[in-house]
């Protein structure tokens, strides 16, 4: 009975927030803004042209190095790109509406805060999906053609199979991108200025992905405790999966205590869990920057 009720709630929420969410029209706005030549905005057009040139160059390099280009390099690039693209897609999602003073127009429409936030998030997912697909095609090509010291086909040279490693690496990368988008959306909901939201998220990314790991690596003497601390790091997890897929021993890495079960699914689930937390948090406190709510609600003494 309880399970049926939970299922019913889930399907109701799914219908309201995704299937029948009028704010899903944001996907169209996203398409118009980012994929239609910049709509006369020179900055958008320039970014689009640079992205196309960069992508074409990448494809040329891959074609030129056919057989010698390791697919994991593309997944590293994709993950690093997500750390930048996700904030770029989401930083002005809500704070931008405040700046344009169109926020009230959404709040006064017959839609819930959850529909607004999820609609914005769906638009980001569309952007992330486009990026993911653009990288997935060359990644699959390189995985098939790569003639390095391990195989991505039926390979089981290392302690995890090459196919599992490839899927898990892509899952980590994709969910990391989604998680960063949700984090950006949260800060966009909580900041009055878009650039403030962008700055905060890029700083957090820099600290979490580069500064703290570098600092920790310098201070640490390696081994298991270090590896546990690095588990949530997407690049590290992808690197470990790659190592485990083509080395049976543990000589390659200084962090050698954890086997394949610790990589792939745990990071994917962790990022998805954080995504859910960030989205719910954004929904709950979406009026924060309007001065209606406090970051930590003040307790009212009776």
């Amino acid at each position, binding site marked *: 009975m309880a399970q049926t009720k939970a299922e019913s709630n889930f399907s109701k929420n799914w219908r309201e927030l995704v299937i029948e969410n*009028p704010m899903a029209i944001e996907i*169209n706005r996203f398409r118009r803004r980012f994929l239609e030549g910049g*709509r006369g905005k020179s900055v958008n057009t320039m970014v689009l042209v640079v992205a196309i040139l960069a992508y074409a160059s990448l494809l040329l390099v891959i074609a030129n190095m056919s057989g010698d280009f390791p697919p994991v390099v593309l997944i590293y690039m994709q993950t690093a790109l997500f750390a930048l693209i996700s904030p770029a897609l989401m930083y002005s999602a809500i704070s931008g509406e405040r700046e*344009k003073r169109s926020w*009230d*127009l959404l709040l*006064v429409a*017959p*839609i819930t805060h959850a529909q607004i936030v999820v609609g914005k998030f769906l638009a980001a997912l569309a952007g992330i999906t486009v990026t993911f697909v653009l990288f997935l095609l060359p990644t699959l090509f390189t995985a098939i053609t790569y003639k390095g010291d391990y195989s991505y086909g039926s390979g089981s040279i290392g302690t995890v199979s090459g196919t599992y490693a490839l899927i898990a690496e892509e899952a980590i990368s994709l969910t990391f991108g989604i998680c960063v988008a949700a984090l950006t959306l949260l800060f966009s909901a909580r900041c009055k200025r878009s650039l403030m939201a962008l700055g905060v998220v890029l700083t957090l990314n820099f600290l979490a992905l580069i500064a703290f790991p570098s600092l920790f690596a310098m201070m640490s003497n390696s081994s298991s405790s270090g590896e546990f601390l690095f588990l949530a790091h997407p690049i590290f997890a992808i690197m470990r999966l790659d190592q485990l897929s083509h080395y049976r021993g543990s000589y390659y890495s200084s962090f050698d205590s954890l086997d394949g079960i610790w990589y792939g699914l745990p990071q994917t689930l962790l990022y998805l869990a954080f995504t859910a937390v960030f989205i719910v948090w954004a929904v709950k406190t979406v009026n924060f920057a309007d001065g209606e709510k406090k970051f930590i609600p003040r307790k009212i003494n009776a």
Partner: protein
Amino acid sequence: MLEVKELRKVYGPLTAVNGISFSLQPGDVFGFIGSNGAGKTTTIRMLATLLEPTSGTATLNGVDILSDPMGIRKMIGYMPDFFGLYDDVKVWEYLDFFATIYSVQKKHRPEVIDNVLELTDLTVKRDAMVQSLSRGMQQRLCLARCLVHDPAMLLLDEPASGLDPRARAELKELITELGRMGKIVIVSSHILPELAGFCNTVGIIERGNILAFGPVEQVVQGLQSTRIIRVRVMSDIDGAAGLSKEQPGVVAVETSGDGEVRIEFGGSIAQQADLLERLVKGGQRVISYQEEQADLEDVFLKLTTGAVQ
């Protein structure tokens, strides 16, 4: 029908709106008059469900703003005192976006968009980018946005601020037309000539309290115990003044050097007609006989002190 009941909003020590009540019927164009900081925008934002009242409530066609805000939102069009436009979309895309949000069915959307564009005289700008529109056109586009879901009530907060005289005149015409269509239109402003032409009901608010409310003429007349009648005669100004003094209802009479008699009159309309008759029968050659019209501005200045909270 809109019924506002004891609506009150308090911010800490500040009472922005102090338990106001009024009601409006379909077709009413209500001018909400007050100085900056009087409580107009706060009231409108409460009616738009953007602010939760501290106490009191309002109902629109029986739907309560507190217990069913979603129901209210489907029935209102809200135009804030700023445009809030997306500049990277075309005019029809902007309207299509809001039509979608207001759950206008996909098959009806093109027709609805064409209709509101025609009503707001923006049909020729259908495919123009929003950022390329003039200020007046952007304002009309905002109004078009408010209309995509055919709301029962429109809340227009300072709709004509920053518009040139022509754009103001067009906006007035449009708002009058919306009233004729049976919508309740609430227009807030502190620019009184802006409202005088097209509002049939006014409310004057100061420091969160409504000082006067009702049809424009009633509000204007309600504040005047006497009215001024100016009479111009051909030659015998003293004779005209003397005859006037004999008429019941006349409170005071003054003459000026340019042949005008200024009569302060407190009688009925019939007595006012009798006064003219008396002057003519008394041999006065009357050139003009005119009641001085008090306007909203006079009423506003008389009622309010200019104090803000």
